[in-house]
């Protein structure tokens, strides 16, 4: 790959660690910076560097290689290893690229939404959150996952709470998120404890080898698996454990909502994939049962109930938040199918959904930025008052529904195909029903925006007031990306198939 030659040598060797260390240090620096502008510039620069670094990692692993980086020179399994392979490299790129777009997008919104004194700390928390998310994806050490999970979570709690100057409910939302998130993380760490008891190691690759030698291990591993699934389920908003999500998405500052919606649940889902398929193995009875009945089952329940709840919300951000719960269900269904086709579809949907939801939440942020609106009824006539933003929202919404030529169609279609191949007719029916529900909750917003007149204030129709370019450019970038994926998804499909082949090494290439 010729692109690699543009990067310096030290980056080739140390890229994995660089990705985590840079935002972590920059976060500490940002906290003490006196002015918002400097902190903002630092954030944009750091997230851009992270994006380049992760792009480099993707380029390095694209032919199926694995990068093993021994942190501090301590080799695995004694030291902490950072492992980059086909499964996590695309997620790393996704997180850092969204981080970059969001930090550009956030420049105007932060001024509007966060108190002046808290702007520099806001950026600090954002950078630490970025470092945490990247860290939990890049690391090959199970306990290190917990540490980074908490690093990202704790900074997220404070980020959500910073929405308080815009909406006081951000405080209670952050508190609820904190309680649920901590319980999830503690469950996860309990599971890790049991797993350590069983295997005597914390290195993921090592655990995998030992568990396979033990053929799944004793009851202790089963218990460990259960705790880990519940813990991660909380983090990724698996259906009945999703209660923290709508509040956290609805009341945090726009920039945080976009970032959370596109990355946080995705990183947790990555961990789920890693634990279910790589560390444990679907050939173990208990893992298989959980995969088929729990993940696929709850995924489908979430697809229907999440979409239904989305229909009845009055707050637009809650509509999209519940929609996220439903979309997580699609990904879980892909995971639950357990076939290479299903995993490819689920993984593809993970990436596509990040792009789509990012664009949609960016549009919502722009609506709030200009008119301070968050209610569904406030959508009236928005196509006239903010045509470009509404255009982005429309295309994003169509993509969420899964109209041809959009990213949503590509991944949903593959999911349907995978379900057919496995003979899961009912799953196909549920995908269809859930898509119909998506038509309703998105269609409702589009109808109001296009077929109603803008409201009148003091006898004057609300004037046209388009969002600033700094918000429009990242938004349209994501929208156009989702269209591009809809037209030609080859790169994404290659990445998703690469990820699936990491998860199911035996069947790689054997099944379509």
């Amino acid at each position, binding site marked *: 790959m010729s692109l690699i030659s543009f990067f310096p040598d030290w980056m080739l060797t140390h890229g994995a660690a660089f990705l985590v260390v840079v935002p972590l240090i920059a976060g500490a620096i940002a906290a003490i910076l006196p002015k918002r502008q400097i902190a903002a510039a630092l954030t944009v620069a750091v997230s851009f560097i992270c994006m380049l670094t992760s792009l480099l990692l993707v380029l390095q692993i694209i032919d199926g290689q694995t990068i093993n980086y021994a942190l501090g020179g301590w080799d*695995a399994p004694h030291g902490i290893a950072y492992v980059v392979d086909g499964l996590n490299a695309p997620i790393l790129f996704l997180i850092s690229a969204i981080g970059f777009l969001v930090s550009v997008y956030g420049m105007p919104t932060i001024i509007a939404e966060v108190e002046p004194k808290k702007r520099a700390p806001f950026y600090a928390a954002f950078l630490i959150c970025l470092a945490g998310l990247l860290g939990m994806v890049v690391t090959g050490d199970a306990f290190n996952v917990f*540490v980074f999970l*908490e690093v990202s979570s704790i900074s997220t709690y404070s980020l959500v709470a910073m929405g308080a100057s815009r*909406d006081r*409910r951000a*405080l209670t939302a952050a508190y609820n998120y904190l309680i649920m998130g901590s319980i999830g993380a*503690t469950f996860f760490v309990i599971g890790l404890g049991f797993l350590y008891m069983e295997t005597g190691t*914390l*290195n993921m690759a090592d655990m995998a080898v030992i568990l396979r030698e033990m053929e799944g291990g004793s009851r202790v591993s089963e218990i460990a698996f259960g705790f880990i699934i519940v813990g991660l389920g909380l983090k990724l908003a698996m259906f009945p454990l999703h209660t923290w999500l709508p509040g956290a998405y609805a009341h945090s500052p726009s920039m945080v909502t976009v970032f959370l919606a596109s990355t946080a649940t995705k990183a947790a889902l990555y961990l789920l994939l890693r634990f279910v398929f790589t560390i444990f193995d679907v050939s173990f009875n208990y893992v298989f049962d959980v995969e088929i009945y729990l993940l696929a089952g709850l995924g489908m329940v979430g697809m229907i109930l999440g979409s239904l709840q989305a229909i009845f919300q009055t707050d637009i951000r809650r509509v999209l938040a519940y929609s996220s719960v439903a979309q997580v269900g699609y990904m879980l269904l892909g995971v639950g199918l357990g076939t290479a086709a299903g995993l490819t579809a689920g993984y593809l949907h993970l990436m596509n959904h990040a792009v789509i939801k990012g664009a949609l939440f960016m549009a919502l942020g722009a609506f709030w930025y200009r008119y301070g609106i968050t*209610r569904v009824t406030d959508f009236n006539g928005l196509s006239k008052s903010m045509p470009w933003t509404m255009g982005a929202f429309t295309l994003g919404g169509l993509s969420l529904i899964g109209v041809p030529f959009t990213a949503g169609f590509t991944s949903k279609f593959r999911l349907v195909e995978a379900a057919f191949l496995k003979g899961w007719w009912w799953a196909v029916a549920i995908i269809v029903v859930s898509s119909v529900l998506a038509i309703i909750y998105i269609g409702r917003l589009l109808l109001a925006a296009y077929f109603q007149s803008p409201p009148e204030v003091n006898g004057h129709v609300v004037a046209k007031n388009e969002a600033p370019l700094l918000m429009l450019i990242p938004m349209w970038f994501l929208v156009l990306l989702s269209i591009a994926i809809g037209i030609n998804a080859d790169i994404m499909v290659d990445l998703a198939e690469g990820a699936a082949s990491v998860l199911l090494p035996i069947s790689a290439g054997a099944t379509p």
Partner: protein
Amino acid sequence: MLTAFFENYNYYVVIILMMTGLYVVFSSRNLIKKLSGLSVFQTSVFLLYITIGKVEGGQPPIVSENHASNDSSVMVAGGGEAAIGHAGQMSDVLYSNPLPHVLILTAIVVGVATLAIGLALTVRIRETYGTIEEDELAMLDYTYNLEGTDA
């Protein structure tokens, strides 16, 4: 039976603390009480880790020349091996594995950070709403939630 009880004594304590903590988190409507429940819950995990850190017949995890398998491509149960000890070198010494202690040191830090953020949030909630009872908070936001307004 009594022996079995005392052998697993630590685990019973862990379970009781864990369940107490979780119950307190879910049942109480006071934000501070919830946080204390959360702390108890997390503390129980520390105990769990410390309990499993005692290994009979272990030896210090010092990598010696003849044992070292620093070649990371050969995946061996290195950490586990160190903790359990080499075959034939089993001793009766009750040995403390340092790794769980180190882990739990990290977890304690994390727990303290979480608690700090939680308490800070509680303070802000008290300043903004004038109460830290969940039911009252829900009442105060009732109209907000009903209309989904921002104002």
